[in-house]
């Protein structure tokens, strides 16, 4: 491998990791909900879209007030977006899923698709169906490599995305493994009926799961607003589909699996685009999914599901 091919490889890996971080953040929402109530929340992509809208709005408002400190913008935007998006997550669960608890699996699934359509149209009516764009808040980056040849470019924004993702994931992991509520979450995911019998308020745990998932989707939404600067009411669909794929790839129900799945998917897309043709990036991503599921039906890190009688 010559010098410049190596540099290109590194650049593509950076591209893939950035994309994968975003997928991973959204994928967590799918996987957590599935892990606890065994349902695919198809409205999750729309929750992410709302997070992106709120992010863009807050950044624009802060810009109007002349706030230009990146850390302040990031913290304020994340806080507001997590708050708003989290409450959407909670409301959706309360209104569309909780009344259907105990009904056959297909029913909440249909309800989820309904919520997804509703939210898409709701934002479309409220914000307009057009693209809303914003100029980048954080520009610049580091360049490595020969002056006159191919240079690897690592933007501050990409580092920020990776850093925020790692921090969010760490906080989530600590929360799940150390806190009292986290233990309740794990108990519910193992056996909800038993957890309930032992005095855990399972409805609260489920609501919390939705809020946590929505909060991470909000983080992804804010990062996407800052990185790409373009949102419209339809971005949730593709992002949701990709993140769902990432969750299944990593093993649905497993949190580390969702992280790994997101990164693997991002890298696969990036390398397919680089070394094959751009048209093939989705083909490769989904072929990878099928391949993994054939060999490991429960995903990369998923545990085989034992049918309980």
């Amino acid at each position: 491998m010559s010098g410049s091919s190596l540099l290109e490889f590194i650049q593509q890996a950076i591209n893939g990791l950035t994309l994968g971080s975003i997928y991973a953040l959204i994928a967590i929402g799918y996987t957590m909900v599935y892990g606890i109530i065994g349902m695919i929340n198809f409205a999750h992509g729309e929750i992410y879209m709302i997070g992106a809208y709120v992010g863009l709005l807050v950044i624009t408002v802060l810009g109007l007030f002349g706030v230009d400190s990146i850390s302040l913008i990031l913290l304020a935007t994340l806080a507001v977006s997590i708050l708003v998006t989290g409450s959407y997550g909670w409301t959706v669960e309360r209104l569309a899923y909780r009344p259907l608890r105990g009904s056959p699996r297909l029913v909440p699934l249909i309800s989820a698709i309904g919520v997804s359509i509703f939210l898409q149209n709701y934002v479309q009516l409220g914000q307009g169906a057009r693209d809303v764009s914003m100029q980048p808040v954080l520009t610049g980056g580091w360049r490595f490599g020969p002056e006159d040849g191919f240079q690897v470019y690592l933007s501050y924004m990409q580092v920020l995305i990776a850093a925020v993702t790692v921090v969010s994931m760490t906080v989530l992991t600590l929360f799940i493994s150390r806190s009292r509520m986290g233990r309740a979450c794990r108990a519910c995911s193992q056996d909800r009926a038993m957890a309930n019998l032992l005095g855990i308020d399972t409805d609260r745990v489920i609501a919390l799961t939705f809020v946590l998932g929505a909060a991470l989707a909000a983080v992804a939404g804010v990062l996407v607003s800052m990185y790409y600067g373009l949102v419209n009411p339809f971005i949730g669909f593709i992002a949701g589909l990709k993140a769902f794929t990432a969750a299944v790839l990593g093993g649905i129900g497993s949190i580390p699996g969702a992280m790994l799945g997101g990164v693997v998917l991002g890298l696969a897309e990036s390398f397919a685009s680089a070394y094959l043709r751009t048209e093939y990036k989705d083909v490769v991503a989904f072929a990878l999914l099928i391949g993994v599921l054939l060999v490991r039906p429960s995903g990369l890190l998923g545990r085989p599901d034992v049918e309980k009688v």
Partner: protein
Amino acid sequence: MNTFSRNVLSAAVGAVVLVLGGVAHAADTVKIAVAGPITGPVAQYGDMQMSGAKMAVEQINAKGGVNGKMLEAVLIDDVCEPKQAVAVANQIVNDKIKYVVGHLCSGSTQPASKLYEEEGILMITPAATNPAITQQGYRMVFRTIGTDDQQGPTAGRYIATQIKPKKLAILHDKQQYGEGIAKEVDKTVKAAGIQPVLFEGISKGQTDFSALITKMKKDEVDFVYYGGYHPELGLLLRQSREQGFDTKYMGPEGVGNKDISAIAGPASEGLLVTLPADFSTDPANANLVKAFKDKGQDPTGPFVMPSYSAVRIIADAIQGAKTEDPVKLAEYIHKNSFQTPIGNVAFKDNGDLKEFEFVIFEWHADATKTPVK
């Protein structure tokens, strides 16, 4: 039946008769459906189409309408989705509207045109440029804009003779419009002896192009042609500059609107765009331009004047042929020429304009444009 219910019944019948009377009265207008994207990612172009058509309707009505009847523009949203376009076409058929100005995107115009041809509805698109639309042997389908086999070669020749890139990349969005025009450019530059190093399709709605940009940077691409619309190109431009890939880009009229600068910011400076000649600079249109500006509308968009002209042609045909039968009007339009803001136009047998010119503009970061040649 007692008296009370009889009274109620007769009142109800009376009400129905009144309503019907109202409908019959409304039917006295000549309805023209204006079908295009009112919502969705490319709704900006729909605005151009709608404002042009509405202005024409207003001005014609202000002068007494056609044959004593007022025109009425019925705006219908197809979101530039092929599926939605067919639903819209069915709605137009069911509503017995006989004339359509639209659709806007080639992908939605093509399936809709089939219905119009079958149902004998006159269709003039002010914006769809894919050549296939007029290659179906239809008699009811016209357009007041050029085609990609004019636009593509204009761009291709400019690339081959003026830019002379060593390593040309051609990208498209895999849609009927974008890919069609990219293929035309590809054909033209190949004929001039330039072999593109890359010909690839991205996805509609894609936001991350970093992998593709890295590849082009690695291949030392020194000129990029993009066939498609502005949302994707805007991000492509912005991410290219961000990665330090400073190559010049060129695109078709689908990228030439203000939003490209809103999305790409400074990165949109120097973008080359093939657009219909700017009819708003034609002195003959000075009054019309003023009318648009008085209403706070922008007459410089590429589809405003073609859309105005489409309505004008329908009205003139109704007046000239002294009929409202769309099939007879189509024959009349085929045989005659019309004075419109886009010039004195006549149509070829397939419904294309006999003459239409695309001009190359250089786009600026403040969303203005200047002609290159």
